[in-house]
Every structure is written in structure tokens, then in C-alpha cells.
């Protein structure tokens, strides 16, 4: 390495170390505070726990409403994901192979043009619609998530399927394959990488979302998702932050595991989601 390279590396080292420290200090606090009794944290926030102390986690996990909210969070993550993967690639296949036809071209434009509409814009009518249909509950939120995931997922899948050569369709059809066999046996298996990407970006959104649960699931504590539970039990009057931190820590575990085991897909999914914006 030349002199300039060494100098650059030194600056990079200092800069990045500061950046990493700023990022991990809150996470470090989160971990040590959830592993200490409240008194120890108040005495010294940063000190490592003096012994293995798991009472905070036990208390959090023994809460009936907590486990219920975890269950709801799993439901509102898994069901929309399954539904989106079931219906969107299908629709994308039909569109990608019939782009020259009037109906498909305009269907595509119709769905894609909604991408720029953020949820806050339609929050009020969605709440009114859901309350009229009597679905201000977990199944209702699942349907709303499906509806709101279609535009972006369709965009990604149409782009992906257009790159799958039509020769494949042709030879399958010549071999006597119908459209639906063609889709399920040939196209869908080739969509796997895109399914992984879409699954990651959407599951992060569903699991971490706050705005939709807060407007749709506030009728009963039994409907709370994890994010909503964590927010609602943040009562300043009787706030035990060691318990709160333990619950945040537990809530993060699924996504951290997902990230560490499939970081390529997580990063790709989030960047694909970002580019759509």
C-alpha cells in the first residue's frame, strides 16, 4: 500500500469505528439492560451483568397478552406472505406474457401507478371501509397487507418473468402443456430467487409495521401485534424499562436470525424495495 492508501485507510478506520460505535451503543444497551435487574441498570447502565439474570425475559414471556401479540404478529406476517406469493407471480406471468394485449397492458399500468401512494394518504378511508365491512381485526389487517403489497411485488415479478425466455413456454406448449401446467411446473420454480426477495422485504414490513396496526387493531388488546403491544405498554406512570427492553430484544430475534442466515436475500430484498420506494 502506498502512502496515500495508508492515509485513506487510517481515516476510514477512525470514521467507520465511530459510525459503528454510534450504531451499536443503543443495541449494546438494549442487551445489557434486558439482562440485568432494574436496580443494577439504574446504578450503571453500561456495566455488563454481574451474573446470568433471565428474570426479565421470564416475566415478559409469562405475560398472556404478550404471547397473544406474538401470535398475532406471526399471523399478520405469515398469511399475507403466503397469499402474496400465491396470487402475485400468477398475475405477473399473465401480464408478462400478454403485454401486447390491451387488457394486460392497462391492468399493469393500473396497478403500478399506485406505487407512489403512501398509506397515510388512504389511512382514513381504509379505516372507514374496514369498519363498515366489520373487519377491524387481525384477518382484516391481513387482507389490507395483501392489497398493499400487490403493486410492488407485481412490479418485481413482471420484471423477473419477462427475463425468462419465451422459448421455454413454446417448447412446453409443443409438448402439450397447458397454460396452468406451464406456470406451475416451469415458470413458478424459476421465480424462486424473486420469491425470496419479495418474502424478505414484505416480512420485515409486516413484522415491524406500526401505523396500520395502530389504526386497525385498536379495538381490543387481544388484537394487538407485537409492535403495538410494545407501544401501548410503554406507560410512563409505571414503566419498567428493563422489561420493555427485554421485550424489544425478544421481538428482534426473528429478524436478526433471518438476517444472519440469509443476509444476501435480506440486503437484496431491502434494496429492491428501496428502489421502488
Amino acid at each position, binding site marked *: 500500500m502506498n502512502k496515500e492508501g495508508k492515509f485513506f485507510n487510517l481515516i476510514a478506520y477512525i470514521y467507520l469505528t465511530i459510525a459503528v460505535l454510534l450504531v451499536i451503543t443503543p443495541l449494546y444497551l438494549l442487551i445489557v439492560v434486558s439482562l440485568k435487574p432494574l436496580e443494577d441498570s439504574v446504578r450503571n447502565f453500561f456495566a455488563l451483568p454481574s451474573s446470568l439474570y433471565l428474570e426479565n425475559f421470564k416475566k415478559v414471556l409469562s405475560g398472556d397478552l404478550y404471547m397473544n401479540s406474538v401470535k398475532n404478529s406471526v399471523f399478520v406476517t405469515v398469511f399475507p406472505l403466503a397469499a402474496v406469493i400465491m396470487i402475485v407471480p400468477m398475475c405477473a406471468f399473465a401480464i408478462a406474457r400478454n403485454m401486447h394485449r390491451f387488457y394486460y397492458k392497462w391492468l399493469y399500468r393500473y396497478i403500478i401507478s399506485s*406505487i407512489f*401512494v403512501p398509506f397515510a394518504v388512504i*389511512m382514513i378511508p381504509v379505516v*372507514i*371501509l374496514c369498519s363498515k365491512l366489520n373487519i377491524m381485526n387481525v384477518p382484516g389487517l391481513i387482507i389490507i397487507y395483501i392489497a*398493499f403489497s400487490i403493486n410492488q411485488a407485481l412490479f418485481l415479478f413482471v420484471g423477473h418473468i419477462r427475463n425468462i425466455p419465451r422459448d421455454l413456454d413454446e417448447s412446453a406448449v409443443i409438448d402439450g402443456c397447458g397454460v396452468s401446467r406451464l406456470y406451475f411446473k416451469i415458470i413458478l420454480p424459476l421465480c424462486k430467487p424473486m420469491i425470496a426477495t419479495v418474502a424478505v422485504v414484505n416480512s420485515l414490513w409486516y413484522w415491524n409495521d406500526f401505523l396500520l396496526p395502530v389504526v386497525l387493531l385498536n379495538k381490543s388488546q387481544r388484537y394487538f401485534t407485537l*409492535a403495538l403491544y410494545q407501544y401501548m405498554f410503554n406507560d410512563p406512570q409505571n414503566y419498567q424499562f428493563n422489561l420493555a427492553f427485554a421485550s424489544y430484544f425478544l421481538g428482534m430475534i426473528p429478524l436478526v436470525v433471518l438476517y*444472519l442466515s440469509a443476509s444476501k436475500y435480506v440486503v437484496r430484498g431491502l434494496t429492491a424495495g428501496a428502489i421502488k420506494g
Partner: protein
Amino acid sequence: MRLMNFYQRKDNIVNRLPYFLFTVPCLVIFTIFLIIPIILGFYYSFTNWNGIAPTYDMVGLNNFKDQLSDSSFHYSFVFTLTYALVVVFVIVFISFFTAVFLNGFRSRLKNAYKTLLFFPALIAPIVVSLIFKQIYSGVLPWLGKTLEWEFLSKNLMASMDTLKGTIEYVHMWYGMAIPVVLYTAGLQMVPDEIYESAKIDGANFMHRLWHIVIPYMIPIVNIVFILTLKQALMVYDIIMGLTMGGPGTRTQTYSVFIYRSAFMNFRVGYAASLSVTLFFIMLVIAVMQMKLSSKKDVNAA
């Protein structure tokens, strides 16, 4: 010949029906739960409905006229805009430099740093803000007292001078992760040959950054800019986690204002008109984004 045969076969109705059926579930769910609400939103913006009463009147454009004279609308609009400008400016620049340093970093720590810097993107913004609320109200004052540092010994969120900065910092903390990844991916597209030959020709680091790296990165800068701008203008979670728009309405951003107007002040018609205004702001940003990305195509061609 075979190709023609294939497309002729596809044209008959028996073969086209499955394609049509494939599009039905998406079309139906999308229309009922996304397009109908958009239309309903426009409709309610012309009413004075309070969200509860069975009847309401059509008031034409009155809600939009009210916006012009509503001081809380002005306040939250300006607050959100200035907030967004600071957050976007800082994220666009700082995450760029982070990516540049990360990209050229020669160390065993490189991958560990990369992984750690991405962590904030995994955490729910509402949880991030609740953690920081505790840090601001508990940890930092404790640290200030221990180190006998006057500035930190009070709650930074309790003073109006520092309140906005504390919220912006939280937003930057979690909003930086994805831009860094986007930039890092972009930096890898800068052709090595050009970069290396400039090096040999004696261009120093700043020259190479300015004349080679930055021109290649303009499209990514546009993406990051639009993405963070949208996020910052729509900010809701971290405001609810940190201040709930308070004290009073001092940190009420636009989304929080819509939420409060509709569900706490029961002015659903008015809140719908605020949403319509937001719709047009987002439309302008979307058009801007399209202009920017088509310019990118011209440059690439």
C-alpha cells in the same frame, strides 16, 4: 413456422382464459382495498363528516379553504418540511461517505462493520424510538451526571432547543442503513480500469472521487434522495414513539396531524382533505423521480 403455430394456438379462447383467471385475484383485492379507498378519500374530502354521525353535508372545497387559514396545518407542514430537509441532507451525504470509506477499507474488520452498520434496518422504527426515548430520558442524564457534563445532565427532549434535533438524530440512526448499502452496491459498478488509470496518471483521491466516482453515483444519489425524502415527509412511527406530537402540537408532523384530526378531533372530512393534499405532494415527487430516472437513462445511453 413453429413460432407462428405457437402464437396462433395461444390466441384461441381456451388458451387465453387461464391467463385471464390468473389476474383475477390480484385485480379484485387491489381494486376493493386500494383503489376504492383512494376514491372514497377524495369523496370524503368534500364533506364535513365527523366519523361517527350517520349524516354529513357536502361542503365543496371548504376543507381545502380551511387548510389555507389553519395555523396547525401551517405549523405541521413547515415542521415536517424543515425536518425532512435536515434529515435528507444529512443522510444523503453521511451515508455516501460511509459507503466510500467502507468500499475502500482494507481490514479484517470490513465485513463485521458492514454487518453491524446494517442492523438498524432490521428493527421496527417504533421500537427504535422507544429505545431512544429511554436513552434520552435515562441513560444520557445518568452519563452526564457521572461525567459531570452539564449539557447532558438534563433530558435533551425536555428542552425545545434540542427536541427537534433529538428526533432527527433517531431518524438518521435508522434511516442510514439502507442508503449505505445502496451506495456500496453503486460504488462497485464504477469501472476499476478508469479508476486505476486515473491513479496512475497522478489524480489524487479527492480528484478521483469528484471526477470519476461521483458522476457514476448520480443515479444512486437520486434514488437515495427520493427514498429518504418520502420517508422523512411521511414520518409517523418515531414521532409517536418519542413525543406523540407533543408537547402540545410542537412536534406534530403531517402524518401525525392527519391521524389526530381524524381519530382524536373527529374531523374526518377535514383529515381526508389533508390526505388529498398529501396525495398531490407525493404525485409531484413521483413525477420528479420519473424525470430524474429518465435523465439517468439518457446519460447511460
